[in-house]
C-alpha cells in the first residue's frame, strides 16, 4: 500500500470509521440496546437473568455496553494538552472498528493491563501507576541516523498528524480488545531522524526508574524493557506512537506519556513509556525474546497457525465476550501487512 502522508488522513480504510454517517441512519441507542436486550433474553431464556452481569454482557457480545453497567468512554472527556490539538471529542459508543466491532469499554482498557513495570498482575498497573508523573519527559533519538537528538516530549510528537485510530489489540496470552488510540505515525519521527542506509532496525527502550516504577524493583524481566521493529515495519502506516486513547491523554497504566502501537503484532511488541529510540543494523535484543527465546520471537506477528508452546493461538477471548473467537492472521491486518513478510517462514520467524 502507498504511504503518501496526506492521503492517509483522508482514507477511511481501517484507520478510523467515517464519522459522517447521517444521524438519521443511526438507530437511536436506546432502541438498539433494547432490541439486543430482548434478543438476548429470548435466546437464552430465563437462565440468562441468573447469570452474573459480566457474563450476561458477554452473551450479548456484539452490543456495546454503553448505557449499561459500564461507561463506554471516560466521563467528562477533557483531553490533555499534548494529545488533542483541536480534535473534537466523539460519541465513543457509536465508534466501531472497520470490521464493525464495538470498542472495549474504557474501564476495561484502563484496568486490565500487562505492564510489568508496575506489577505482574493485570490489576497491578492501575493501582501502582497512579502516582507516576509522566511529565516532564524526554526522548533520546540515536544510533545509525543523520539527525540524532534529545527531545522534550512536546517537541518530539508531531501534533499536525495526531488522529484517532481504532485498532484491535491482541495479547500473546490470547485475549484481545478494541481500542481507540490517539497518536501519530511512527514514520514521521523516523523520517525526521534520517536513518542511515545501514540502519535496518529501530530499537525502543522503556524508562528505567525503580523509584517510580515499583515493578522494576524485582528482577522479573531484564530491565529496562526493550522492543524493536524492522525499519519497514516501523515505517508502515499502521504503526503509530500513541499519546492517548478514547480521546484523552494516555493513562499511566497504558504507557503514558508515549507508547508504540503495532496492531498486527502481539501486544508485548507495543512498548510503553518510551525514552529512547535507536537505529541499529543488528536485530535488537528484545526483552521477552531474550527472557524465553522459544516462546517469544522478535517478529511476534499475530498468527493463529503458530501456537505458543504452552497454549493455542487459534482463538482469543475478546474482553467482554463469553465465547472465544477465532484469531485472524496478522490480527485482521493481513491485507495491509502480509506483504512485509513475503517469502519468510513464519513458523521459524514467530
Amino acid at each position, binding site marked *: 500500500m502507498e504511504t503518501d502522508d496526506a492521503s492517509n488522513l483522508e482514507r477511511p480504510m481501517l484507520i478510523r470509521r467515517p464519522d459522517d454517517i447521517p444521524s438519521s441512519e443511526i438507530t437511536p441507542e436506546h432502541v438498539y440496546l433494547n432490541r439486543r436486550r430482548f434478543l438476548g433474553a429470548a435466546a437464552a431464556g430465563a437462565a440468562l437473568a441468573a447469570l*452474573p*452481569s*459480566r*457474563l450476561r454482557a458477554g452473551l450479548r457480545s456484539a452490543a456495546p455496553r454503553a448505557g449499561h*453497567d459500564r461507561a463506554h468512554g471516560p466521563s467528562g472527556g477533557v483531553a490533555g494538552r499534548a494529545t488533542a490539538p483541536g480534535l473534537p471529542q466523539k460519541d465513543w459508543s457509536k465508534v466501531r472498528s472497520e470490521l464493525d466491532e464495538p470498542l*472495549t469499554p474504557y*474501564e*476495561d482498557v484502563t*484496568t*486490565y493491563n500487562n505492564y*510489568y513495570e508496575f506489577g*505482574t498482575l*493485570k*490489576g497491578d498497573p492501575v493501582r501502582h501507576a497512579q502516582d507516576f508523573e509522566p511529565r516532564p519527559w524526554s526522548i533520546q533519538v540515536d544510533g545509525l541516523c543523520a539527525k540524532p537528538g534529545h527531545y522534550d516530549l512536546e517537541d518530539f510528537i508531531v501534533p499536525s498528524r495526531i488522529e484517532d485510530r481504532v485498532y484491535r489489540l491482541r495479547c500473546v*496470552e490470547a*485475549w484481545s480488545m478494541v481500542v481507540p488510540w490517539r497518536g501519530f505515525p511512527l514514520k514521521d519521527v523516523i523520517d525526521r531522524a534520517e536513518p542511515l542506509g545501514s540502519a535496518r532496525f529501530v530499537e525502543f527502550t522503556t524508562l528505567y526508574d525503580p523509584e517510580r516504577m515499583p515493578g522494576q524493583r*524485582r528482577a*522479573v*524481566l531484564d530491565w529496562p524493557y526493550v522492543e524493536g521493529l524492522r525499519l519497514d515495519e516501523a515505517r508502515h502506516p499502521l504503526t503509530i506512537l500513541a499519546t492517548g486513547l478514547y480521546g484523552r491523554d494516555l493513562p499511566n497504566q497504558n504507557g503514558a506519556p508515549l507508547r508504540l502501537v503495532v496492531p498486527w503484532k502481539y501486544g508485548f511488541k507495543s512498548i510503553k513509556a518510551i525514552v529512547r529510540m535507536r537505529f541499529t543494523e543488528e536485530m535488537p535484543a528484545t526483552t521477552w525474546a531474550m*527472557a*524465553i527465546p522459544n516462546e517469544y520471537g522478535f517478529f511476534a506477528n499475530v498468527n493463529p497457525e503458530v*501456537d505458543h*508452546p*504452552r*497454549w*493455542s493461538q*487459534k*482463538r482469543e*477471548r475478546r*474482553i*467482554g465476550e*463469553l*465465547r*472465544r473467537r477465532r484469531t485472524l492472521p496478522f490480527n485482521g491486518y493481513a491485507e495491509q501487512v502480509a506483504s512485509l513478510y513475503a517469502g519468510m517462514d513464519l513458523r521459524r520467524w514467530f
Partner: protein
Amino acid sequence: MTQAPTSPLALGVDARAAKLGESVLRRRRVALLRAGVWALGLWPTLRLGWLAWRDGLGANPIEALLHRTGDWTLVFLLVTLAVTPLRRLTGWNVLIQIRRPLGLFAFYYASLHFLGMYLVLDQTLDWEFIWEDIAERPFITVGFAAWLILVPLALTSTRSAVRRLGRRWALLHRGVYVATALGLVHFYWKVKADTFWPLVAIGVFAVLMAARWWARRVARPVARGT
C-alpha cells in the same frame, strides 16, 4: 447436638460419667473443627460467586475464575497435606478428623477449576480445542492428569471404601502426593515470568514432604506407612 454436661450433678459423680463427659467434649470439638473446615471450604465459592455477581472480577471474569479456583485447589491440597505433619507436631490427634473433608474440598475446587471453569466457561465445551490442549500442551496435560488422579481418591473416600480396600487404600491415597506435585508443575508452567507464587507453593510442598520423610526416617525408623 448433644449437650455438654454443664449440670453440677454430672461433674465428678463417678468415673464413668466423667469419661462420658470427656467424649462428649471431644465430639463437640470435632464438630466445631468440622464446621470450621466447611466454613473455610465454602468461603472461596461464596466469595467468588458474590464477586462474579457484583461484576467484581475485572475485565476478564472467566480468566479470574479459572485462576482463582486453581489457586484454591492448590491451597486445599497443601492444607490437606499439612494435617498429618501438624498432628504429629502438636499431638492433637483430633486433626485427623478434618483430613477427609479438606481433601474433598481440594477435589471440589479441582473439579470446579477443570470442569466448570476450563471446560464449560473458558472452552465452552469445544472438544476439538480441548483435546488439542490436553494432548499437546504439557502444562494442561499435567493439570488434567492431576485432576484425573484425584477422581478415584474422592470416590474411595467413604468409610466403607476405606474398610473394603484395607492396605490398598493407603497405597492408592498416596496418589495425592503425585497429584499435588503435578498441580504445582501445572501452576509453575502456566506463569510467564513471575514465578514467585508457584515457588512459594512448591516450597510449602517441599516442607510438608520433608516432614514426612523426617517422621519416617528419623523419628520412627521402624514404623511403616505414612
